[in-house]
């Protein structure tokens, strides 16, 4: 399976600021995703990060709040903008590839606390 390096591992941020989370994959993968897990909840898909084009966002998530970049097949960033305490969550990137028999791998996660 692919190996994903995600950082930062955790951060405490002031409301109104922005945080950018990075994911680096050790191999080229077709599809990358960003998930959010709010406290006590399950994982919810934010968006699919598309290489060379705008990300595809799920209902309830917008580009202005969660801008995503994917400049190549091994790297992506998620920015959480203008943060409020409600953004306190674990953020996870995930990849899947037909080459990897559609196995899904997750990054180590970023625990974000907004104060």
């Amino acid at each position, binding site marked *: *399976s692919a190996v994903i390096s995600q950082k930062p591992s955790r951060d405490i941020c002031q409301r109104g600021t922005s945080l950018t989370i990075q994911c680096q994959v050790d191999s080229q993968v077709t*599809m990358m*995703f960003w*998930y959010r897990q709010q406290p006590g*909840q*399950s*994982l*919810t*898909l934010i968006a*699919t990060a598309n290489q060379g084009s705008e990300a595809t966002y799920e209902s309830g998530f917008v580009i202005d709040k969660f801008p995503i970049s994917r400049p190549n097949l091994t790297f992506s960033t998620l920015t959480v903008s203008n943060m409020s305490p409600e953004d306190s969550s*674990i953020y*996870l990137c*995930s990849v*899947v590839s037909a080459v990897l028999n*559609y*196995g*899904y*791998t*997750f*990054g*180590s*996660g*970023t*625990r974000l606390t907004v104060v």
Partner: protein
Amino acid sequence: EDKVVQSPLSLVVHEGDTVTLNCSYEVTNFRSLLWYKQEKKAPTFLFMLTSSGIEKKSGRLSSILDKKELFSILNITATQTGDSAVYLCASAQGGSEKLVFGKGTKLTVNP
């Protein structure tokens, strides 16, 4: 609307007990059913099931998929305190390859 439902949501057992976790799904263009164990932040992969009736095993854990009835179970035998975690079930959609997660089952194994 695509959905994955897990039961029970919470379970407390004693070491040595056997547990069965349930997962039902209704997902458009179903590709596979996945089970994960989550202890801290990142879910740890357990099983991926694509075919009905074929049991997958890894040590004390096993899982099976029923594509006719749209459900899967995860069995853990001879539970240990280290099995305490949230177990997540997710269904993968072919094409978009998105995962739809259930709410998870929180398993607590007491000594």
